[in-house]
């Protein structure tokens, strides 16, 4: 009996090991053997993975399209940069900064946490009414939230240096900090999904009315997961800021939303494994395409410059995925080790029913 329990326990948490071990190996191999370009790409991959997982926590479990998370990523990027920059750099980078922000100076990890905390507080204050909305209104309002955050980032000169580039951030995100953050968030996202809160949320996604009839306060569970997702996305934003070292508010707008959304949807929104696989596949596809684009432009293969080829092909791929495999590559399943009974490594999730209300 005890042994059976142990096997069951191990089986249900095997997903974490199956996903994290290759990630660690990937980071290790990159660190040991790869050139600087590949190290940059792999670091960016794990940074994106954090944001994608943040989106998965809300969107994957609740089934509601979340536009705003990239906005929260921006909040995290700005706040954590302000926290980690030295006062002298800050004076140059953000000339109009508030005096009380000027003397703020934390080390790397506390800066990231402060960034995440600020986003959590903002999300906690504004998002409750949004969670009560249904389908279309929910989509329009969270889209509006992304625009509002972007507008504030552009116009609040005293915090963000306005539409101009914020520069002078130390490059503190290494491939190891990125991979360990991604692993921590991955474990968190998986545990969240399996927790009672996650289960309630998934129930509300699969059948709204049945979930409500069972006494689940849907607005509340959506609210919690939105706030948690915003916190994770903003943590990822902090990592991004200390990876890229200079950015403008437009880095956290439509193009990045498209990027993050593509990663999540290609892998499969409903599972943590999907978020991981999607991030890896899309990052390498995008970097490969970008290399092709640069090659064409540098060697003048064509009589004109190609701009936007990468996005055109990625958008096409996304549409094809949505047509032929709307649940993503993994279809919402998780990688799982199954003892004896079935030799298969993957197990089907409880069937998710798409209901037309």
């Amino acid at each position: 009996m005890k042994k059976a329990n142990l096997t069951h326990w191990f089986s249900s948490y095997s997903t974490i090991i199956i996903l994290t071990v290759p990630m660690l190996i990937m980071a290790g191999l990159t660190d040991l053997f790869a050139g600087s370009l590949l190290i940059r790409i792999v670091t960016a991959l794990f940074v994106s993975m954090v944001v994608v997982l943040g989106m998965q926590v809300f969107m994957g479990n609740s089934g509601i399209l979340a536009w705003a998370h990239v906005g929260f990523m921006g909040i995290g990027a700005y706040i954590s940069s302000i926290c980690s920059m030295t006062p002298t750099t800050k004076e140059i980078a953000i000339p109009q900064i508030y005096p009380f922000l000027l003397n703020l100076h934390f080390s790397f990890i506390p800066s990231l946490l402060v960034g995440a905390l600020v986003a959590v507080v903002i999300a906690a204050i504004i998002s409750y009414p949004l969670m009560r909305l249904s389908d279309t209104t929910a989509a329009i309002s969270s889209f509006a939230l992304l625009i509002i955050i972007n507008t504030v980032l552009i116009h609040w000169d005293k915090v963000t240096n306005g539409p101009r580039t914020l520069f002078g951030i130390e490059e503190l995100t290494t491939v190891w900090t990125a991979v360990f953050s991604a692993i921590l968030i991955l474990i968190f996202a998986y545990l969240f999904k399996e927790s009672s809160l996650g289960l309630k949320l998934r129930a509300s996604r699969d059948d709204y009315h049945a979930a409500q009839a069972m006494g689940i306060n849907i607005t509340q569970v959506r609210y919690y997961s939105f706030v948690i997702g915003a916190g994770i996305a903003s943590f990822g934003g902090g990592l991004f800021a200390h990876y890229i070292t200079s950015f403008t508010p437009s880095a956290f707008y439509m193009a990045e939303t498209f990027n993050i959304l593509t990663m999540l949807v290609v892998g499969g929104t409903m599972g943590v494994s999907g978020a991981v696989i999607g991030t890896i596949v899309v990052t390498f596809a995008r970097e490969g395409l970008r290399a092709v684009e640069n090659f064409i432009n540098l060697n003048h293969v064509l009589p004109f410059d190609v701009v936007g080829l990468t996005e055109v092909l990625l958008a096409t791929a996304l549409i094809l995925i949505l047509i032929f495999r709307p649940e993503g590559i993994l279809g919402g399943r998780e990688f799982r080790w199954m003892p004896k009974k079935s030799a298969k490594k993957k197990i089907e999730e409880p069937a998710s029913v798409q209901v037309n209300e």
Partner: protein
Amino acid sequence: MITFGFLINAISLGSLYALISLGLVMIYGVLKMVNFAYGELIMVGGYGLYLVGSKFNLPWIFVAAAAILAAMLVSYLTELVAFRHVREKSLTALLITSFAVSTLLQNGALLIISPRAKAVSLPKIFSSSITFLGITTPARNILTIAITILLLLGLSLLLRRTMLGIALRAASDNFRMTRMLGIPANLVISSAFIISGAIAGVVSLFWVGRTASVTPSIGQGPLLIAFIAIVVGGISSLEGAVVGGFVYGILFSFIGVLLPQTLLDYREAFMFVIVILILLWRPEGLIRVKYAEERVG
């Protein structure tokens, strides 16, 4: 301060916004999806003006017709290639598809044409002004109002008097029932996309006419306007979209005049406060319908 000329300005902006929202809500009616790629249809119309206008030496009216046709064609193609196959899946999938189509069209324009703004040649009427009843106003304003009225009349004739129009209205009330009565779903949805594309094409004439140039991201502004207008007016009916567009455009003009100079920078913020007040007063928008259906694949 508030003169007759100003009123014409306000009504002209209102009619343009009404047209913009009408095109968006055409598709919402049948698919219950807000089309994020709608702004890009306006962009396509603009590039149609640029390409046909600069490559062929045609009278401008043919150039405009070509631009509208281009927007209709692209709208139909997006439905045929993308939306038709995602329609039966979840709303989230549908919305992401429209976002992907939007990205695809925008970057397609970057790739095929140019990231830089392209000048569009416009006929004299867009830059001249006319005087009547003692006031002088840009001819473009009168043209916008006239075309809007004509389009609204034409569209309401189409929707009320033809078989297709009745099918469209039935589909936006109750899609499942409409299908059961033997109306082909593909036909209805394709027509909605084509009409929406035609409206986007007409809008592009006036939208591009304001700056006389076109960029790949030109569709973002109209899309946002349409979003706000349909929420204010009521998302479930075509009348709501028109009313919302007019209200939004006219309010926007009035705020511009009534606010003191020092507060003019915050014009949009005041606009949104009013929008929120309207929604607190009437959460379903200004125009209510008897019942609104959730989407059916």
